[in-house]
């Protein structure tokens, strides 16, 4: 086993299962999604067994605090049994009987959708997000909801009403962050508690935890998947995103959740077209151009990661790709641009949380004025980081500041997008290669002098969200004993190309 976990011997007697998973359950849980499918199709296992195996892992990894809620066992087994029966009857469900995890930012009817916030700790969804509906329609078993940074705001999964999620790669004496904001989903996949998971990526919230937890994190193009039912943080940045154990698994999940939705006016009707990817298994990259953006070689980047970057470029070159140094001149403005625009949208998207129709309501203020009710409910319901970003956002949208901050940042965003367009369209670069993070997973609870310091974790990942282009983090060899990721970015709606190169890149891990 690749991680060092502290096993807690709890007195749990549930259906005669002890805390440590059986060998069989370990074997099943460590399968990839595609392998699990194959085992199901060849009757080597059943969906019921897969659910039991993953539940055993969940029980065993409780201390990682990856989940905000796990579905009722009876219901899960019933759903699994249903899938087994359908399979036996010849029904072909692409994800039939495969257990998955859902970040607690997605509405799933009947579940609490808390966004890891006190504000929504009592909110039970009345409808299911489109992407989750698609998973269900394809036969997936949704095991439960995973922990996150409150409302998606954070890079370490430490800003949660339910406490931090622990990185399974933490050494014995420390608790490391899994990254954020989709830390729970990343850990759920990394610790074999499911075969894939949904997260959301607004500034790197899936790619960063993927890198630090040794799994694949795929951020689709903006407009590829429906946002309907995904609680909004920054509407023009948010995308539903995927955690998986390998790139092929990720591709399968992308295929399942992408597509137009009448309820989302920003979701386009474009076929993701992965036929060729699934059929053509060649690792030959002849004819493809990989760009290395010089501006991403920042002062903060550790020498080990720089080394890793060089290795990755050589690895791709050895498969026939042409490596080319490129320039994305406005990269250094990305951090500031993001932290003006995203909080602005957040301050707007979170205005609806007033405790009046649902969510946390301060009962004491009930008999006072509406203004007091709102103020108290929101002050109590939101955590510090959320309040910080709402205040920042309100400031940049205020009449006196709008032109100097919001409008300026919106213009710079366009310049950043144009940097990418020039490189992809004029210079004919196919994919861009960078590391996903500039350092390894930090320790949880380490005091920062300035909360804004934490924002620098996102420098590598932010530009893709600003430009709306697809990006993926692929796990690679350990760096200083901890997981790291390599990031690939492609032009808007070029997930096909992205995955093709990612499939080659992920083999680098095994080359050691």
């Amino acid at each position, binding site marked *: 086993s690749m991680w060092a976990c502290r096993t807690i011997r709890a007195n749990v007697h549930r259906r005669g299962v002890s805390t440590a998973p059986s060998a069989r359950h370990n074997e099943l849980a460590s399968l990839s999604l595609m392998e699990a499918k194959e085992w199901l199709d060849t009757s080597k296992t059943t969906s019921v067994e897969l659910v039991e195996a993953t539940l055993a892992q969940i029980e065993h990894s409780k201390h990682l605090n990856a989940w905000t809620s796990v579905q009722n066992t009876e219901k899960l087994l019933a759903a699994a049994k249903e899938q087994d029966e359908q399979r036996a009857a010849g029904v072909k469900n692409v994800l039939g009987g495969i257990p998955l995890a859902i970040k607690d930012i997605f509405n799933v009817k009947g579940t609490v959708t808390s966004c890891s916030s006190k504000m929504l700790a009592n909110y039970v969804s009345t409808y299911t997000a489109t992407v989750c509906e698609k998973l269900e329609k394809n036969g997936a078993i949704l095991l439960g909801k995973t922990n996150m940074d409150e409302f998606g705001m954070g890079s370490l999964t430490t800003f949660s009403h339910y406490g931090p999620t622990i990185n399974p790669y933490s050494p014995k004496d420390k608790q490391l962050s899994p990254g954020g904001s989709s830390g729970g989903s990343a850990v759920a996949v990394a610790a074999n508690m499911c075969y894939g998971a949904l997260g959301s990526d607004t500034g790197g919230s899936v790619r960063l935890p993927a890198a630090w937890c040794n799994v694949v994190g795929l951020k689709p193009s903006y407009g590829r998947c429906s946002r309907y039912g995904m609680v909004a943080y920054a509407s023009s940045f948010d995308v539903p995103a995927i955690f998986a154990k390998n790139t092929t698994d990720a591709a399968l999940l992308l295929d399942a959740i992408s597509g137009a939705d009448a309820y989302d006016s920003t979701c386009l009707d474009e076929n993701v077209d992965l036929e060729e990817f699934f059929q053509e298994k060649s690792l030959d990259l002849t004819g493809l151009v990989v760009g290395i953006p010089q501006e991403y070689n920042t002062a903060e980047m550790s020498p080990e990661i720089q080394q890793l970057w060089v290795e990755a470029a050589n690895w791709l070159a050895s498969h026939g790709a042409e490596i080319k140094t490129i320039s994305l001149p406005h990269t250094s403005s990305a951090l500031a641009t993001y932290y003006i625009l995203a909080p602005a949208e957040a301050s707007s998207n979170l205005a609806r949380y007033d405790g009046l129709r649902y969510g946390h309501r301060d009962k004491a203020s009930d008999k006072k004025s509406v203004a007091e009710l709102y103020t108290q409910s929101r002050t109590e319901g939101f955590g510090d980081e959320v309040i910080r970003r709402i205040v920042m956002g309100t400031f940049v949208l205020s*009449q006196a500041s709008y032109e100097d901050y919001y409008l300026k940042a919106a213009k710079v965003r366009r310049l950043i997008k144009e940097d990418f367009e020039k490189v992809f369209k004029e210079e004919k670069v196919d994919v861009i290669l960078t590391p996903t993070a500039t350092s390894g997973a930090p320790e949880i609870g380490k005091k920062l002098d300035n909360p804004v310091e934490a924002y620098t974790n996102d420098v590598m990942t932010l530009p893709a969200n600003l430009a709306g282009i697809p990006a993926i983090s692929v796990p690679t060899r350990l760096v200083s004993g901890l997981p790291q990721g390599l990031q690939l970015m492609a032009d808007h709606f070029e997930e096909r190309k992205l995955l093709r190169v990612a499939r080659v890149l992920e083999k680098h891990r095994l080359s050691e």
Partner: protein
Amino acid sequence: MNEPFKPPNTCVAHVDAGLPGALPVLNDFCVDQAIRCGTALNGTINARSRFDRKHYFYHDLPLGYQITQYFEPVVTGGYLSIPLEGTNDEKKIRIERIQLETDSGKSIHDGHPFLSLVDLNRCGLALMEIITYPDVSTSAEAGAFLRKLTHLLKHIGVCHSEFGEGLRCDANISVKLVGDPEYGTRCEVKNLNSVKALMDAIEHEAQRQVDLLEAGGTVELETRWFDPLKKTTSTGRKKDDKVDYRFFPEPDLPALYISQSRITEALKSLPELPAETKRRLINDYKLSVGIAEMLSSSEGAAEYFQNAVNTLGKEHATLVASWMTNEIFAYREEYGNKWDFGSIPLDITRFADILKMLIDKRIIGLTAKKLVALVMTDKDPRTPQEIVLANDWEIAATEEAQVDEKLVELCKTIVEKSQKQVAEYKTEVGRRDRIFPWFVGQVMKELRGKGNPAEIGAILQKHLD
């Protein structure tokens, strides 16, 4: 779309309730309505317009923001001409913009002893806001504008309800000293649920501001609430005017691009506009400006007129028009806003029948008036011919022939006796409409009312010309 009178909070979509994760979708039908309305008001349909968020916290605004079109609305410019009372002139009230936006829910403060109630049924529905330049100078003009606009909107099928229900308005009022170049600070007045309320509010508010300024005070920019019973305005939520709405582009809705073909398609269902009808009535039928204005601004009048003229002949257009405007219009009061020529008891067939009998000299004018009254007021279901027969009101042919020679003599005498009036008739062409009936009246006086005005008129005409 909602029907009225649904129980509270039974027509609420996810996004209307501000549920987490819900997204808005643009109602294409409403865009087409905006295209039609913008065209009818002579505005420019913008090829590209955008949506924006306008933020404020209120319990009937679940999202904490309204979706509107602050930066680039769907229609800019345009005008509506209103008739100026007492003249044949018109005044153009210019439109600044028409924008699409979402409605908020309804707050009910008097439905519970100590709680305010919120009904979200209409929340999220699309509104079309028509904003004018401050061209309206009097309360009368405001009333005329609102009436004309209401008629136009109903005529083109953009509005189906009465003013006060589907159609609401706010007024911004400011005053200035005669001779001053600029108007003073304005106040916005809300809660105007009728044309009368609008006019009363303007009168009161203007006077209030004048009194305040004359006493040495200053007018503050604020939103005031109109009380229709007391006919006064009072300070509303003062805070609102200091509110920074933090406008920014709505990220959940892409920009709206309207092609020429979409405009053409949307306008296919646009009927003839009132201004064009008015022009046509003046040009084709030689109706007076005043009458053409009345016929083109009354619901169903143009069709009614057209049908009658088609039946009776173009030469009787003036007769038809004057009977509609003088006789039938008199019954308007009991119908109020719901007046529609298409649905009055006197249907077009019977109206044409009455006039035909008059034209054919089978009945006198007074009889025709009686017939109109019987149908309009008493809702008599019979045909005019049946009523005339039952009451023996038809003029016998013989009576006419007997009176003829004596009548001609009488008319001649009257004309010779009244040289002053004859001179007036011959020189003041504009006043002919008023002088001619005097002659008729003189003859009728001699006949002690037992004459046929039409026949008398024809004879007099010969002698006067």
